[in-house]
């Protein structure tokens, strides 16, 4: 790559890959932080094996971390990386096929031993057999150089070797003209009780940087112009962190205690971990005995006036569905967070998918509609979580928040909102009444009027049996018909209250792309490409999937064709077809990975032609 080419580079995707034990997530995380602090927009994608400690050197033990950064808005972690840091043969093997032509490969040659080549199922050494032709290969004996740099350190050889990821990080810092301060600060904080480790990691980082500088092994370093982001204060945030903060913020703004009832499950556990730290924010977390206990305790807490939340992934939703039905019936606010992963059954625990949509929409006995909101990016999870709480509290009913493994673990810069600009959430209860009826409703929202236990004179019962307005159990046929319709109508009325998404592109044309959730970034990029060539394609990205935006029916009528790309076998498309009697087409890939820009572009073009 010549200097001239490099200066034209607008966006870069880099992938760190190695053994699970090589510290790649940490390396990637540090690279992201210093990239964000240097003023770039970025999105990250951690990709780690499902096994906790996969055998070293194996293909299925490869752990990766990808980040795309740019001076322009970034919407995905990048389809095909420009740079790969491969710490061993397995990491090279697994990732090579995803790389761009002529990509830069920085390879730790020390790891290319006979044994490791065998474990990676290489018949010959790719560094020697010419199979890496077409790439820019930079072989570096990272392990040896790290040991050399640490020769005065009192650490054992094994511990010294664990510093080699910082050597690699140091090289990339030089390559992308990054400052090392943030990482040095981080190392000092992290190892403040183990000064010899702090010292060694700092040395390795510096050694990597100096090595790249001195040897000039890389022809030059990248200079990517800085992003022009909206003014404000930023931080990097993952989807799961953003949900935790969104929930705490909503509870504070509603002047409520936050109660999380949850059971550990990948990839949702981080929300439980995160919230468990904040006892001093009036957050009570309850790690229940199972998924059912998680939601049941949250509903119990809601009954007393707390903001009850439960967090899980698809398999957990399956277990919670009976309680979701009870929440519909007793009409109490409850937020159910589903961080989708590959299914069915245990499926692909650490991979992403959008295949829980129909489960959360319809996976309950009886007529049990629940509003569903889907977050579209890591930072958006904050707003989506807040909105889910707002609706649950305003309408006194359960709300599902959908995220997925991709945005849960992925990170991007988040413009921190000013606390005073976040709206208060007003919640009122009945405190006095001569004739309290537990199922009497607000005429506008249809939310029932709630009296909290502890309120004198308003003792009453709620439960899973059908009730009439007075709260008495009723098996009267007309009453049931009426109540079923009211519960459905209440979900519809959420549509009067929430903001509808904007149509991107022209109001009418040939093709309308409809999407939801984490495919936002990919489709954004795809549309950018499409719009350079076509002006008859528009895009509508849903935020609330239930209820559907009121405008959608009209919008659809203005287009000849409809395409719905999803990471499932076509779930939203079923709803669209049923709801609007339109011959919507679907584009699906279900690999446990985000969709790729290129394939969405292709799908759009094919649909246009078809």
């Amino acid at each position, binding site marked *: 790559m010549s200097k001239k080419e490099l200066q034209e580079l607008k966006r870069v995707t880099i992938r760190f890959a190695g053994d699970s034990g090589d510290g790649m997530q940490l390396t990637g995380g540090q690279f992201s932080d210093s990239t964000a602090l240097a003023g770039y927009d970025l999105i990250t994608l951690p990709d780690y094996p499902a096994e906790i400690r996969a055998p070293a050197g194996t293909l299925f033990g490869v752990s990766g971390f990808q980040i795309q950064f740019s001076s322009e808005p970034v919407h995905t972690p990048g389809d095909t990386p420009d740079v790969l840091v491969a710490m061993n043969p397995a990491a090279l093997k697994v990732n090579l096929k995803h790389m761009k032509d002529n990509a830069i490969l920085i390879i730790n040659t020390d790891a290319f031993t006979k044994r490791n080549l065998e474990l990676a199922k290489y018949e010959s050494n790719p560094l020697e057999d010419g199979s890496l032709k077409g790439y820019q290969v930079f072989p570096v004996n990272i392990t040896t150089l790290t040991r050399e740099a640490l020769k005065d350190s009192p650490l054992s050889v094994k511990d010294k070797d664990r510093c080699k990821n910082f050597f690699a990080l140091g090289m990339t810092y030089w390559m992308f003209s990054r400052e090392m301060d943030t990482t040095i600060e981080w190392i000092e904080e992290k190892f403040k009780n183990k000064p010899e480790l702090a010292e060694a990691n700092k040395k390795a980082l510096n050694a990597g940087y100096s090595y790249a500088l001195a040897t000039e092994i890389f022809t030059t370093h990248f200079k990517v112009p800085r992003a022009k982001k909206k003014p404000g*204060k930023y931080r990097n945030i993952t989807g799961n962190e953003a949900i935790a903060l969104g929930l705490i913020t909503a509870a504070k703004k509603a002047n409520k205690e936050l*109660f999380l009832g949850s059971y550990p499950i990948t990839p949702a556990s981080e929300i439980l971990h995160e919230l468990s730290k904040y006892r001093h924010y009036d957050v*009570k977390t309850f790690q229940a005995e199972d998924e059912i206990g998680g939601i049941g305790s949250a509903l119990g807490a809601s009954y*007393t006036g707390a903001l009850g939340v439960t967090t899980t992934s698809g398999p957990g939703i399956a277990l919670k569905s009976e309680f979701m039905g009870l929440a519909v019936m007793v009409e109490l606010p409850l937020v159910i967070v589903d961080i989708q992963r590959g299914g069915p059954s245990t499926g692909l625990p650490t991979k992403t998918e959008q295949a829980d949509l129909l489960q959360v929409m319809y996976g309950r006995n009886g007529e049990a509609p629940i509003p569903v909101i889907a977050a579209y990016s890591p930072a958006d999870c904050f707003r989506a979580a807040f909105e889910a709480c707002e609706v649950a509290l305003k309408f006194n009913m359960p709300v599902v928040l959908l995220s997925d493994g991709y945005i849960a673990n992925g990170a991007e810069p988040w413009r921190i909102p000013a606390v005073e600009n976040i709206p208060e959430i007003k919640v009122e209860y009945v405190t006095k009444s001569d004739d309290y009826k537990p199922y009497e409703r607000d005429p506008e929202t249809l939310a029932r009027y709630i009296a909290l*236990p502890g309120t004198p004179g308003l*003792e009453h019962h709620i439960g899973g049996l059908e009730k009439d307005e007075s709260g008495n159990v009723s098996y009267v046929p007309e009453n049931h018909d009426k109540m079923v319709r009211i519960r459905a109508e209440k979900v519809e009325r959420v549509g009067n209250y929430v903001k509808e998404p904007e149509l991107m592109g022209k109001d009418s044309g040939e093709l309308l792309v409809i999407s939801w959730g984490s495919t936002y970034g990919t489709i954004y990029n795809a549309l950018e490409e499409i719009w350079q060539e076509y002006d008859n394609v528009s895009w509508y990205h849903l935020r609330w999937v239930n209820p559907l935006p009121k405008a959608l029916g009209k919008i659809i009528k203005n287009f000849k064709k409809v395409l719905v790309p999803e990471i499932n076998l076509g779930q939203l498309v079923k709803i669209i077809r049923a709801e609007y009697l339109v011959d919507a087409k679907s584009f699906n890939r279900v690999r446990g990975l985000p969709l790729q820009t290129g394939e969405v572009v292709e799908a759009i073009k094919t649909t246009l032609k078809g």
Partner: protein
Amino acid sequence: MSDTLTKELKLTREDFTSDQEVRWCPGCGDYSILAQMKKVLPELGIPKENFVFVSGIGCSSRFPYYVDTYGIHGIHGRAPVIASGIKIANPDLKVFVITGDGDGLSIGGNHFIHLCRRNIDITVVMFNNRIYGLTKGQYSPTSERGKITKSSPYGTVENPFNPVEMALASGATFVAKTIDREPKHLAEMLRRAAEHKGTSFVEVYQNCPIFNDGAYSPVTDPKRKRENVVIMEHGKPYVFGQNNDKALNWSGNDFEIIDIEPEKPPKDLIVHDEHAGRPALEFMLVSMTFNPDLPTPIGVFRDIKEDTYEDLLIRQIDFVKEQKGEGDLEQLLNSGKTWVVE
């Protein structure tokens, strides 16, 4: 609770009578439990609005409708988790779980043992009729092996649970057993369970005249019961028999029955100690339940003081607040590495 408070509240049994028509079968043991509960509630010195009754599904689980307090009739087996959420979120409430042998030990067994383990201040009353009543007569997890029911026409091949044993093993800090036909004893057990701080558990032998009539006749039949039941009382020897002429003696590794003179019982008889917290002895007592040669013990098996879940949690919250200060939202959102774009 203090008497003065009770007097101030001036609550009576009528205050707890709901307007709902009670719909148990005539002669059902549940009526007696309801009657004694309504007698006990006004005596607890707790404002009426602070009571919450939570239930699952089954005949027993209709109970909340029949007391005029706050109540949730939930889903099968799950009352303990709803109750846990309620109590943890608002420790000022007095929370009861009303359950049965099927609801509490079969579908809800997991929640039951975890509730006991956590020692959340909730009173669990289990109506044990050793049968499924609401679904019309299948065997339950407390039905004796060999029992012939609709779903076991040739007899069950399963061993039953002993609810008290489960509660003891799971760590409940108050565990008692009583009988629907012994209203005074029943009321006393309910009252003590309700007053206990921590998870309290009362198993009530409850007759289901429709599907399992006479399941407890050996311990309820006036002619036989004195021979078959030993009422455990703290600090007193285990005396029973038609004329109080028998006692349990501890042989060193087992209980044995000895004859005594009611007027002059031997001085060295082992006496009951509810607060001992000695599992070995507690379990020996429970094990007599299924032993045809020994009487069935009723009364309090265990009554010990331990920190409750919610007290520990509140202490933890206070501690974290002391260390870190009251949480500030501005600070939370702005934590970690931040940077400013001009």
